[in-house]
């Protein structure tokens, strides 16, 4: 039996990995799901050791088995799971044969678990303080009064200002950063020796992500062992000591963070590293080339506007107000102007609530601005009634973040694409079908997806269908509103490559909206940085990313995680300690 060394008697924790006790050891873990008697394996032969004050990261795409692995370690794999392991040991305890009661005493007390986005990972009907207190109550910690005090201490320790007020607020009343901190506070309430963080920063803005990563780093420094699960290598790069790369349920590569990041051996790992978009990747491909020949089709010529050489889209002084639930009016978009040239990509970057999506909706004339005008191909666009806009509608189309919600779930791909063809453009059914097949080829999809329904397509395939639908009317401009934000890094890389190819092939202009600076810097010729409805900075991509002038742009760039393991994300003082007014209830 192994003895656990008391960390306080260890001579210097940073001495070397060999001196640290192993807190969690996983040996040859196999997990499958049984369905009608047959077992479908989802995790095969995973082994690793997690030492005190160390971070092990499991990186892989959705469906790679990384989350199943994490949940198995707290005994919550699911009803139909078949777990078979050579051994899972938490300190002296064998986790392979525990009663439900024993499991409950370990969860929350010895292993803390952090899920993504606290908006849905904390009970939306209860104040966050109650959720944190629950973790203490469940394990019989202290009495009522001391628990209340402990909750405030915990909130303060994760950097939540004015904890007394915040503890009484619900997740929807707190900003993204504050509620994620509250979620972390509930996971570490009993100071567990191990914290498992499953995509803890996915769906968060980049500055919030940086705050969360710094918090995890701080916990690690104080001796907590962290198991970090992510699809994004750049998120784990500077935090992880060991990295496991998983694909299809298997560990394809495993080693120290340094060796994985600087000298990846497996092609899959290499692909993951190359897939991370950044300023340095501009003009190069992110994903390995796919076997799709460029398809040339005459149907995409915009004959009637081919001669026009001014800006294809021009917005001047856009203003849009919204009425908040409490009756006050807020400017979501404030004096925003931009122009988009033919074949150009204009990136609009900003965090949630910055007004970038509202700007996109005004550009698409789906929303009327309170002031300002939009001109499309040199013609009136925002100022004319919808009936007169229809003639120009086919010149501008849009791809959203989640195509699933913009597809009719009862329509198959063929019907979705047929429906998107401009009325009267193709005389016969044969011509329409030919056009649909050409569109599929352009977005690199096989003909076999024609008869599949949106739910039967993978996330990447769905986004390709959404792009094909946007291309169907042969537009001059495509608005991409967070079009790759919901995708895993490797799928995102393929879609970004596709978008670059299509732009070259058809001379498309992109209005590219994203919260992700890496993606924006990879794609954009020129960039607008938005905050609270204002454009705080605009310029060419090189200017913005090499010589940012506005403090907010600098803050965004500092928060961006990169593959450089020595680069630690930075958070400006203003962001690391949010002002007391942030997230207060209206």
């Amino acid at each position, binding site marked *: 039996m192994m003895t656990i060394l008391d960390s306080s008697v260890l001579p210097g924790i940073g001495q070397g990995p060999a001196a640290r006790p192993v807190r969690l050891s996983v040996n040859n873990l196999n997990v499958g799901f049984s369905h009608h008697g047959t077992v479908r394996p989802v995790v095969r032969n995973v082994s690793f050791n997690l030492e005190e004050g160390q971070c092990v990261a499991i990186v892989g795409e959705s469906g790679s088995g990384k989350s199943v692995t994490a949940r198995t370690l707290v005994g919550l794999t699911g009803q139909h799971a078949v777990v078979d392991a050579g051994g899972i040991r938490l300190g002296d305890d064998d986790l392979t044969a525990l009663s439900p009661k024993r499991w*409950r005493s370990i*969860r929350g007390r010895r292993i803390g678990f952090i899920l993504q986005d606290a908006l849905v990972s904390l009970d939306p009907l209860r104040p966050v303080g109650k959720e944190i207190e629950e973790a203490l109550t469940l394990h019989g910690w202290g009495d009522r009064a001391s628990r209340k005090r402990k909750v405030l201490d915990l909130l303060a320790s994760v950097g939540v200002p004015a904890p007394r007020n915040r503890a009484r607020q619900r997740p929807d009343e707190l900003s993204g950063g504050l509620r994620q901190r509250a979620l972390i506070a509930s996971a570490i309430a009993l100071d567990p020796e191990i914290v498992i963080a499953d995509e803890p920063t996915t769906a968060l803005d980049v500055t919030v992500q940086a705050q969360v990563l710094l918090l995890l780093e701080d916990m690690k420094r104080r001796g907590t062992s962290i198991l970090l699960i992510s699809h994004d290598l750049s998120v784990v790069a500077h935090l992880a000591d060991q990295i496991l790369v998983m694909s299809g349920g298997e560990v394809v590569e495993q080693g120290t963070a340094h060796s994985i990041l600087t000298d990846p051996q497996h092609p899959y790992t290499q692909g993951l590293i190359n897939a991370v978009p950044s300023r340095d990747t501009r003009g190069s491909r992110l994903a390995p080339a796919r076997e799709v020949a460029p398809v040339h089709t005459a149907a995409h010529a915009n004959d009637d506007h081919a001669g026009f050489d001014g800006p294809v889209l021009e917005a001047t002084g856009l203003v849009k107000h919204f009425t908040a639930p409490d009756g006050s009016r807020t400017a979501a978009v404030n004096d925003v102007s931009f122009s988009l040239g033919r074949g150009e990509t204009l990136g609009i970057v900003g965090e949630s609530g910055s007004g970038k999506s509202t700007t996109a909706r005004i550009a698409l004339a789906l929303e009327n601005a309170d002031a300002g005008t939009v001109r499309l191909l040199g013609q009136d666009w925002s100022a004319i009634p919808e009936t007169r806009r229809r003639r120009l509608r086919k010149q501008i189309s849009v791809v959203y973040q989640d195509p699933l919600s913009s597809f009719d779930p009862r329509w198959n791909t063929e019907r979705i694409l047929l429906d998107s063809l401009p009325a009267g453009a193709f005389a016969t059914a044969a011509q329409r079908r030919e056009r649909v097949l050409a569109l599929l080829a352009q977005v690199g999809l096989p003909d076999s997806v024609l008869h599949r329904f949106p739910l039967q397509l993978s996330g990447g395939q769905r986004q390709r269908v959404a792009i094909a639908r946007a291309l169907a009317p042969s537009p001059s401009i495509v608005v991409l509103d967070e079009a790759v934000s919901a995708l895993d890094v490797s799928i995102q890389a393929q879609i970004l490559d596709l978008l670059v190819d299509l732009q070259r092939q058809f001379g498309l202009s992109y209005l590219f909206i994203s919260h992700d600076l890496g993606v924006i810097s990879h794609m954009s010729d020129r960039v607008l940085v938005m905050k609270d409805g204002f454009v705080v900075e605009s310029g060419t991509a090189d200017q913005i990313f090499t010589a940012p002038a506005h403090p907010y742009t600098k803050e965004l760039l500092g928060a961006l995680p990169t593959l450089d393991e020595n680069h630690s994300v930075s958070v400006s003082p203003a962001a690391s300690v949010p002002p007391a007014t942030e997230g207060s209830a209206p």
Partner: protein
Amino acid sequence: MTRTLSSRPADAATAARRPILSPRVRRIVEKLVAAAVVLWGAATAAFLAQIALPGDRATTILNVRSGQTQLRTPEELASINAEYGLQNPILVQYLDYVGGLLRGDLGVSYQQHRPVWGIISEQVGATLTLTAVTLVLAWVLMIFWVTLTAGRGTKIRALGSGVDTVTAGLPPYWLGILLLLVFALGLGWFPVIGGTGVDGIVLPALTLAIPLAGFMGQATRTEFERSLTAPFIITARMRGMSDLNIRLRHVLRHAILPAVTLSGWAIGATISGAVIVESLFTRPGIGSVLITAVDSQDLPVVTGVVVLVAATYVVANLLVDLAYTVIDPRMRNS
């Protein structure tokens, strides 16, 4: 060229133009106005029904009182017309009627020749007690059954929702007789004739509560199973919470909103449903008053009951709205 915009005060984007009433107060005022409109509509409909009935009303009143159907002399009718104000134009009668309602005066019974409010208030207590007990029983049954069976294995789930569907469809009349036969006549656990005692209310309340529990259960079960898979439930499990605790402390609160809505409707429906149950179990209550009044064409009493039921609906739905914001505080702002 790089253009920048200097930092600005945080409140510049927020134009301070607040409405006079806070949204919350305005919502409450709107609800009260709507409630008043509903009550006025129900009262007016009841009044118009009286007017629309065939035959001379004074003759009807005399016949109801004497229990005989015969032609009346003008002298007899004149005194009745004077007593009930029937000689006035309809608009004046209507205004008198509405004015009486505002003062809490529901009119005078044709048959018993005394204020309707007196007749109703003697009986309404028993019915409201039955309604309250029914509602509580239905909630207890529903929560117990849903918590026990929702989100379990395939077979238990099928059993759970199967029982919901079957009980929701049970006719109260048939169910009441069945309960009487088994528990009162067969086992002798409860009295056959209800009365107002504690043990007398169990079977009548169950008769109404079982179908209601099934009905609410169907609505709750869907939400319950949806909530069970929510990420915040996983978080609670990761904290070391037991399954039963999760169901009771987290999931239920999310799942009961549809049942709360149904309860508002059920309070009104139970008062109507009481007609059958009260006669079946020979309980006193508003049901027997209504049956007697309808039989004898005692219209002021019928009208009074209609207005009372409408008022109960209105109050119940105001309570439901209130319960909503207590259960889901997010609704206060939306």
